[in-house]
């Protein structure tokens, strides 16, 4: 028994953290709201150079051949930085699938729709992986997607209207892709929660009212303590889900649902407390908080919201012939 990441896994995370601190500062996240494709440009290229984009692609297909356990902390960092990119769609879901096809050499970004017909960063995507009972890979994705506006200005959504140039996906690929996506979104939500907490801790230590930092008031302390607790008891579920997927544990899908329900709730709580503790400044469009908050609102409801995943857990423990089968 050892519930910890390896030195290599932590070093990879630190490298991605440093890369994103440099290439994806808040000003870049903000710029992505108004640029042509909602994406980062430089950060994505740097991640590609580091091999991150092909982390789950087999070495035979030119990737790093890593597992979910190796990339879960990277997804957390992408959330922490509010990286405006289809990180989960590409790294965890799309790249390993597309790499095994004739289009494997394609270098463009991949977007995904998982059940619902909305795909993020659609306008710039070269491929669309459509995860549904009749799962498909679609080339030239942009032409199949009608633009929609997300609450998160960087997530240029496309609503799937047709799938003309498509090829079907294997059922096993579909399942693996769906739960990898759930894991990736869960990890990003943990990262988003951590960042909103960090921003708020910094702010309330500086902001003074009634002659004292507002962070010295118990009402503020208790809001933020609750966020810290929620993150503390969400992250281990996410890390366990990554382990279960990597190990091929039959309960991995249930573990992913537990992770998504808990991380979605934690990120929502973090967003709510962060806004309340920032007060009117946090309610201002010029302040960066809303960039993280709106990402959390979007990700917590995409790929199954907390209630959808909690219902899966309820069915597993209450309706199966044997408990928790």
């Amino acid at each position: 028994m050892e519930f910890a990441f390896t030195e290599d896994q932590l070093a990879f995370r630190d490298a991605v953290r440093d890369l994103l601190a440099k290439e994806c500062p808040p000003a870049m996240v903000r710029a992505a709201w108004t640029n042509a494709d909602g994406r980062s440009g430089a950060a994505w290229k740097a991640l590609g150079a580091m091999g991150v984009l092909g982390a789950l692609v087999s070495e035979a297909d030119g990737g790093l051949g890593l597992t979910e356990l190796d990339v879960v902390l990277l997804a957390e960092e992408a959330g922490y930085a509010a990286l405006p990119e289809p990180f989960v769609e590409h790294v965890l879901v799309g790249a390993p699938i597309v790499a095994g096809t004739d289009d494997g050499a394609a270098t463009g970004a991949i977007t995904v729709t998982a059940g619902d017909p909305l795909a993020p960063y659609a306008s710039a995507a070269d491929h669309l992986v459509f995860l549904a009972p009749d799962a498909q890979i679609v080339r030239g994705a942009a032409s199949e997607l009608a633009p929609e506006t997300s609450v998160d200005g960087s997530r240029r959504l496309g609503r799937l209207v047709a799938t003309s140039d498509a090829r079907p996906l294997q059922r096993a690929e579909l399942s693996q892709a769906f739960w990898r996506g759930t894991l990736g979104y869960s990890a990003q939500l943990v990262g988003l929660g951590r960042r909103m907490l960090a921003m708020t801790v910094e702010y309330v230590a500086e902001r003074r009212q009634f002659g004292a930092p507002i962070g010295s008031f118990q009402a503020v302390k208790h809001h933020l303590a609750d966020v810290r607790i929620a993150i503390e008891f969400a992250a281990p579920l996410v890390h366990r889900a990554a382990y279960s997927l990597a190990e091929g544990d039959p309960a991995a899908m249930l573990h992913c649902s537990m992770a998504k329900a808990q991380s979605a709730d934690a990120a929502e709580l973090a967003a709510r407390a962060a806004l309340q503790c920032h007060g009117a400044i946090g309610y201002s469009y010029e302040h960066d908080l809303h960039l993280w908050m709106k990402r959390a609102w979007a990700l917590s409801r995409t790929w199954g919201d907390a209630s959808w995943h909690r219902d899966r857990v309820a069915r597993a423990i209450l309706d199966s012939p044997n408990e928790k089968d």
Partner: protein
Amino acid sequence: MDLSWSPEEQAFRAEVRAWLAANVPAEPLPSGDTREGFARHLEWERRLFDARLAVVSWPEEYGGRGASLWQWLIFEEEYYAAAAPQRVTQNGIFLLAPTLFGFGTPEQQDRFLPRMASGEETWCQGWSEPDAGSDLAGIRSTATRDDAAGGWRLNGQKTWTTRGAFCTHLFGLFRSDPSAERHRGLTYFLVPLDTAGVTVRGFGRLDGDEGFAEVFFEDAFVPDDLVLGDVDQGWSVAMATTGSERGLTLRSPGRFLAAADRLIALARERAADTSDPAIRHRVAQDYIDAEAYRLQTLQTVTRTLAGDAPGAESSLTKVFWSELDVRIHADALALLGHEAELDSAWMKGYEFALSGPIYAGTNEIQRNVIAERVLGLPRK
């Protein structure tokens, strides 16, 4: 990362499970927070001790097995899953013992640990006073030097002392330097409750059991060899115990996993009949939280074994398990509906769960600790 148990750990689990299956009383014992029930529980503690299962993680010379922290977690999971009796010795073996191992003299360890493990001597915690609850540093009970007799004279009052009316010994903090303030000038004492000048009066808890006591000290003499740690350093000695109480040792995940399993069994019988449409999701959330607590503990133990002992982080744990325990029992009462008012293990458990957010430092104090010492927010 490796979330599997080794063959040795699995064998240990099998041994514990088999022993419990053969030995746990078929009929639940009367509450250990009553005089009669306490005595019955001590008989059970003796059986555990004779099987070398009372204190598995202690060294063999004191009645343990030198078991790893992992094995201790496994023992706890099996213990609660078997619905084995409450541990009336817990304030000694889980709260005092870590402090004795850390600060006690070899003589003190030899004198107290074996009899603590067997249940021959039972310990209560003498910290709270009428005017020192959450504000523990406000302790007023005094220890006055008696050089002629070679020890100290204790005066004052402790209260809300769990099972104080039934225990043989008390460990507590007394103010030894009256000129010092707050957490300075306190000394940690080990006090036999049959000492002349000590008076114990039991009183009822919320559930009516005599689980609380007031302990009065009137010039009670305690020799020097019953001081634990250095004179006037009682606060830092006591904080070692506080970490144990808030964190790992007192509330192992096994308890909440077992409670969640009982809740799931109840929900499988009754969820369809309840008028509460959200109950299924709440039960699922309780299960998720119990699992989260188990996994967070595995993470903490991994870190502890790597030499990174938890500090203020134990406050995160305390808030989480105590509030989870209340939710689990409240959800069980929701499933019971109008029958919830009947005398039952769930109502008794609910009453007990409500003490969790209060004892071992109220959750309001814990949230302050989290904010100031984990997040680094300003105290003032």
